[in-house]
């Protein structure tokens, strides 16, 4: 995984609650067997008319937000299906930071496996961002978001921070403990399936 660096830029304000992963990537696009190329399907049913033209009133179709890497959302973002395709689509579309008041558990975990920094922030702060049009700096190393030269700190578990900053592979890390896994297995009483 690529190392996570500081992100600076405009935000895409997306003030909706309970956005489920069926909306982030609809089921008709889950049939691909690779991880790449999901960006074009992001929010497909909200973004496109039936004939494939852009829906004018959908936020991602506002040219003002082209190239934005920071999505600001509201509570319980990413609820529902466990599909990691939702995160692949957000990443492929260009988002590397998502700021919201809360995230669904599986979605939150999936973000960090794919180099997306999901940040939980207080309601007042998030709501103030929905109308903010300037640049934002997201500095993971120092755990701060800079808005209008004002710094706001954010919380993040240290292991998640380290893995993003170092771009570490989880499996490699785990296999370092292979001898511990082996000795755990020796004491198990649950038999094999077959």
């Amino acid at each position, binding site marked *: 995984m690529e190392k996570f660096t500081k992100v600076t830029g405009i935000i895409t304000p997306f003030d909706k609650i309970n956005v489920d992963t069926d909306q982030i990537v609809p*089921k008709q696009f889950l049939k691909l067997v690779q991880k790449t190329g999901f960006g074009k399907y992001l929010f497909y049913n909200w973004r496109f008319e039936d004939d494939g033209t852009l829906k004018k009133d959908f936020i991602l179709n506002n040219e003002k937000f082209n190239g934005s890497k920071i999505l600001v959302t509201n509570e319980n973002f990413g609820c529902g299906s466990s599909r990691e395709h939702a995160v692949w689509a957000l990443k492929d579309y260009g988002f590397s930071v998502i700021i919201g008041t809360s995230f669904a558990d599986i979605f939150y975990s999936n973000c960090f496996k794919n180099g997306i920094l999901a940040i939980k922030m207080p309601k007042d702060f998030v709501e103030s961002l929905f109308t903010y049009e300037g640049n934002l700096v997201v500095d993971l190393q120092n755990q701060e978001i800079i808005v209008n030269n004002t710094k706001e700190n954010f919380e993040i578990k240290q292991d998640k921070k380290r893995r993003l900053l170092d771009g570490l592979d*989880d499996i490699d890390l785990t296999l370092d403990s292979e001898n511990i896994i082996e000795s755990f297995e020796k004491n198990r009483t*649950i038999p094999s399936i077959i």
Partner: protein
Amino acid sequence: MSETLFEKIWKSHVVKEKENEPSLIYIDRHLIHEVTSPQAFNGLRIDKRSVRRPDLTIATVDHNIPTTDRSLPILDETSSIQIQTLETNCKDFGIKLFGKNSKNQGIVHVIGPQLGITLPGTTIVCGDSHTSTQGAFGAFAFGIGTSEVEHVLATQTLWLEKPKSFEIMVNGKRKNSFAITSKDIILSIIRQIGTDGGAGHVLEYRGEAIFDLSMEQRMTICNMSIEAGSRAGLIAPDEKTFDYLKNREFTPKNYDELVDDWNENLHTDSNTQFDKSFTINVDQIAPQVSWGTNPSMVCDVTQTIPFPEEFGNGVSNQIKSAEKALAYMDLKPGTPITEIQLDRVFIGSCTNSRIEDLIDAAEIVKGKKVSPNVRAMVVPGSQMVKHEAEKLGIDKIFIDANFEWRESGCSMCLGMNPDILKPGERCASTSNRNFEGRQGVGGRTHLVSPVMAASAAIAGHFVDVREWC
């Protein structure tokens, strides 16, 4: 020290732990299907890794598989490729697959328990959020993303932050235990605690009304834990649990020994404090019908469509989302639920496609006909359910009533196969999610129990099924 059931299972699976960091947790059972696994196997190939414990892993095809004649080729090319990819991956990595023509094929959360693969006190994962279903057996069962699927394949473990515990106390006795189902209980719970009420927590369902339920009814409850935001929900095992799993195809040989151990250990100690607690009484529960676009937007069948202000209770976000939901659903506040006319009825999904669901629905349908305005289908959860139903003659009851009787799979719960709603169609569905477009772009879903769906199919609109039985 007194502990919750979940804490006991967690503790017995910790491979490695460090303060303030996630713990490495051992996984006893890994179930795989065609949609969320191909990228995980690709990852293994790229890094030249193998599957650590193929003997703890099984696979089936359920999401994409057509529910029509299995001897015919799959017409959708991308579905066909995804299914073939799973076949190749299972062959290459030595994993047992219950494929398209297997007698054990079915929805992964339906076949796990039916085959005796699901066991109390175990950790069970699958790249599917409804893995929580299997918590009904006193297991810590939860959905994972594809990166985690790859991690489990390679290491048989997962890094997890320990979730908090949430007690859901379900008291009382249902007035009409045929018409008021476990689906109505879980919808009532989600209606009250909300779609993120359980986030960060493992739910433990307790109380007399839970132990009164059969294993299949308990699975319906645990299945929808994720709709309340919880990755997992569980129920302590009892005699019903042990009886259910006895003599299944993959029930372990030392089962009796295991049962002795589970009997002794798998319960929450008395006087244990949960991090959170919620109590519901089922005495007064009515059949539930969802009216909106998430599973907390639910009301009694006797009620009317709520006004957004009433639903939102002064919270502007909630009011906005209710307005949007009603626009999508094309419903007007104040309309009685029983006046909602339907185009489609779907009885199936990992929530409600087991044999008891079909027996109960058939009881309602027997000797009647589906309304001429409705197209109705029954999709058994597995080939085993289908054959059992056919042995009991239930298929004939449905077919005589003009229901379509299909092969097993996820089908119209998420419409990855050809079973989908057309834009604007309205469906009474026994599935778990009423999200926008879930059952087909522009389709409108109302979540209900199997007996409510069956009665709605006959009447052409929702009815209070208590009046029918």
